[in-house]
C-alpha cells in the first residue's frame, strides 16, 4: 500500500505580524459588511474589495516581483487566505487568478503572457475564470467538445463552457479546448488558452443557482478568434497542464472553510451555558476544524517544498468537504431556528439559509467527491 504523511508544520513566526495586519485591514474594510454576505466567502466577489487587497500586495503574493508579485512565501499567502476566508471577505473576484491561473502561467505561460496579465491581476484589476466543464463533459473532462481550429495568426473557437464561476465579472478565461480530433489516446489533442472574454463571438450568460444567485455562467463561443500567442504551454499538452492546474485548485484552505461564517454565527446564537448536546457538537466541530487546519498547513508545506502531495491534497479536500457540508444540517439540529431570507430574517437565519442551500455544491465544484475518492484510491494503489 502506498501511504500518505501529514508532517506537522508550524506557520513561520514571521507570519504573525502579517496576520495581524490582515485582521486590521479586514476589521476596517468590512466593518459594515453584513453576515449574510460574508456567508458567500470565496464564491462572493467584489472588484472594489479585490483592488484594495491588491493594493496591500496580497494577490500574487508568491509571484516574482517583476510581474507585480510579492515574492513572498507560500505560508504568508496561506495566512492571508485563511484570514480572508474566516472573515467571510468577498474574495471571489480575484480568487481564481491568484490560486490557479497565475501559477499556471508562471509554470507554462510565455514571458509575454505573464507580462500582459499578471501585473493587473496582482493589482486586483484582472480576474480569471476556469473554462473546463461543458454541457456534456463534467467529471469526464477529456470528453470536451469545444474546439479551437487553426487559422491565420491564431485559432477559431466554437463550443460551450458551462458552470463557469464568475465568468460574467472575469476578464480572462483559462480555457481547455480540443485542438485535434479525439482519438484512442483521449488525453491527447487538448490545449489551454488565455481567452480575453471581451472579444467578439463570446457570449456570457449567467445561470441562476438554486439559492437565487447568479454565480456561475454559460459561455458560448461562436467563431471566436484567439490569437496564436494566447496558447498556454504546449499545443496538445493541455491535459497534463490542466491536471497541474487542478492540483492548485484542490489543495487550499477554502476546501474546508466555506461554512466557517456559519459556525461562527451558530456559536453566536448558542447560549454561553449550552446544553450538553450543544457543547458536544460544537466541540466536535472545533476538533475537526483544528485537525483540518493542521492537515491543510501540512499540505501547504509540501507544496512550498516543491513536492507533489496529490494524495494528501485529495484527502484534505474530501474530508474537508464532508466537514463543511455537514455543518448546516448540524446547525438546524442544534437550534430551533429556520433558514430564512425573507424580510425580517435575522442575520443568523440568512447565513444558515445560504449554507443550507449551497452545501450540495461543495462536493461538486473542483471535481466531485467521487472523482476525488478515485484519486485517493489510485494513491492507495487500488487502481
Amino acid at each position: 500500500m502506498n501511504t500518505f504523511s501529514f508532517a506537522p508544520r508550524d506557520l513561520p513566526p514571521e507570519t504573525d505580524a502579517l496576520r495581524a495586519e490582515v485582521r486590521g485591514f479586514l476589521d476596517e474594510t468590512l466593518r459594515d459588511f453584513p453576515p449574510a454576505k460574508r456567508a458567500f466567502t470565496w464564491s462572493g466577489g467584489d472588484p472594489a474589495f479585490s483592488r484594495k487587497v491588491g493594493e496591500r500586495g496580497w494577490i500574487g503574493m508568491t509571484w516574482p516581483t517583476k510581474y507585480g508579485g510579492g515574492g513572498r512565501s507560500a505560508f504568508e499567502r496561506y495566512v492571508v487566505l485563511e484570514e480572508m476566508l474566516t472573515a467571510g471577505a468577498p474574495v471571489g473576484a480575484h480568487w481564481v487568478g491568484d490560486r490557479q491561473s497565475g501559477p499556471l502561467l508562471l509554470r507554462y505561460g510565455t514571458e509575454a503572457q505573464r507580462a500582459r496579465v499578471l501585473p493587473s491581476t496582482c493589482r486586483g484589476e484582472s480576474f480569471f475564470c476556469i473554462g473546463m466543464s461543458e454541457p456534456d463533459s463534467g467529471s469526464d473532462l477529456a470528453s470536451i467538445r469545444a474546439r479551437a481550429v487553426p487559422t491565420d495568426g491564431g485559432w477559431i473557437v466554437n463550443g460551450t463552457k458551462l458552470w463557469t464561476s464568475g465568468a460574467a465579472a472575469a476578464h480572462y478565461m483559462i480555457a481547455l479546448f480540443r485542438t485535434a480530433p479525439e482519438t484512442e489516446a483521449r488525453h491527447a489533442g487538448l490545449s489551454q488558452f488565455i481567452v480575453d472574454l471581451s472579444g467578439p463571438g463570446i457570449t456570457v450568460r449567467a445561470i441562476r443557482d438554486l439559492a437565487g444567485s447568479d454565480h456561475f455562467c454559460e459561455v458560448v463561443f461562436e467563431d471566436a478568434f484567439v490569437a496564436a500567442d494566447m496558447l498556454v504551454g504546449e499545443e496538445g499538452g493541455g491535459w497534463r497542464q490542466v491536471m497541474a492546474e487542478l492540483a492548485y485548485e484542490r489543495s487550499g484552505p477554502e476546501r474546508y472553510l466555506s461554512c466557517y461564517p456559519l459556525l461562527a454565527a451558530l456559536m453566536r446564537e448558542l447560549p454561553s451555558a449550552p446544553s450538553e448536546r450543544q457543547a458536544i457538537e460544537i466541540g466536535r466541530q472545533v476538533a475537526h476544524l483544528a485537525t483540518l487546519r493542521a492537515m491543510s498547513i501540512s499540505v501547504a508545506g509540501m507544496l512550498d517544498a516543491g513536492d507533489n502531495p496529490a494524495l494528501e491534497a485529495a484527502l484534505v479536500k474530501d474530508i474537508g468537504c464532508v466537514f463543511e457540508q455537514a455543518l448546516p444540517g448540524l446547525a438546524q439540529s442544534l437550534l430551533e431556528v429556520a433558514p430564512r431570507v425573507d424580510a425580517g430574517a435575522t442575520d443568523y437565519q440568512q447565513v444558515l439559509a445560504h449554507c443550507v442551500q449551497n452545501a450540495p455544491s461543495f462536493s461538486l465544484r473542483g471535481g466531485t467527491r467521487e472523482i476525488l475518492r478515485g484519486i485517493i484510491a489510485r494513491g492507495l494503489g487500488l487502481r
Partner: protein
Amino acid sequence: MSELRVMLEDAVTRLFGDRVTRECVEAAERGAWQGDLWRAVEENGLTRPHLPEDAGGAGGSWLEAYVILRASGRYTVPLPLAETVLASWLLTEAKIDVPDGPLTIVPTAVDAAVLGGEAVTLDVADVPWASVAAHIVVAADTGDGLRVALLSSASAAEIRGGQNIAREPRDGVRFVAAPVLASAQTTLTADVVHVYGAMVRSAQMAGAMEALLAQSVQYAGERVQFGRAIAKFQVIQHELAKLAGAVAASGAAAEAAFVAATRGHPRFEIAVAKTRIGDAVDQATSIAHQVHGAIGFTYEHGLHFATRRLWAWRSEFGSDAYWAEELGRAALARGADALWPDLTARGR
C-alpha cells in the same frame, strides 16, 4: 523528522514486525505475559524514548514517544508501553529514579490524603496492566500540584484481574498500608494523568487506525469475487478512500497533540485528538469490517486485534464526547469571535 525519530521508527518497525506475531497477541489475550517481547523492547531502549539520557532514556521528547506509541498501536503490541511511557515521565518529573520493568499508573489522580504518609491504603479499579506491571505510579492532587509516588505491585494486598474488550488487563488494585518506595511533589497540574493518558491513547489509536487501512487495502487486493479482486469495485475503492481520510485525520490529530506536549499546555490539542480520533472510530471500523466480510468477523482472522483496541481505547481516559464537551463549553464560553484567533494562536 529528527534522526532519532527515524532511527526509532526503523527500530520499532523491525522489532514489532518480527516479534509481534498473531500467536504472541493471542497468547497475551489468553492472559500470558509476553515477557520475552518486553525484554526485547526494553533492551532496545524503546521504553524511554522521551526521557533524558541521565534517566536512562533516549534523550528524545514526546515526539519520539509518539513514534513508538503509534507503532505499538499499529502492531497491536500486547505490552503496557503507553503506561510505562506515561508513568516514567511522571517519575522523571518528580525526580524519582525510574525502575526497570513494566510500569503502570492509576488512571486518575487520587485524594491528597492517600499519599499523605509513608504507606498507602487505596482501592482502585481499572488500572491498566496492573497484574503484570512491576511498579505502579500513583499521583495525588495536593491542591498546589501533583504528588507522585512509586509503589511496588508486589506490595498490593489484592489485584483483581479484569480486561477491556481488547483483552488487555484492566485490574482492580487494593493497597493496605503498602510502603511508598519514593514520593515527591511536582508542579504538574492535577489533570495531567487524565490528559496525558488521553494523549498516549490517541497515539495508539492513530496506529491501530493505520493497521485497519493497511489490512483492508491488502485484503481487498487479494479477495476475488465475481472474477476479480474486490479492490476493483468502485464502491470498495471509495469506502477505502473514506477510511484513508479517517486514518489521515487521526494521525494528524494525534501527532499535533504530541507536538503541543513538547511545548507544554497541550490540553487543547489532546482534547482535539481524542475527540477527532474517537469520532473516526465508527466509520473506520465499520468500513474495515465491511470490506473484510465474514472472515474479518472471526477470531481467526485478526482484523479485530485493531478494531477491538479502538473500541476499548475510545472509552479510556475520556471518550470523544467527554473531550468534545470540554472543547465545546470552552469555545462557547470564549465566544464566536475568539474561536479563530484562539486557534491560530496555538503553537505560538
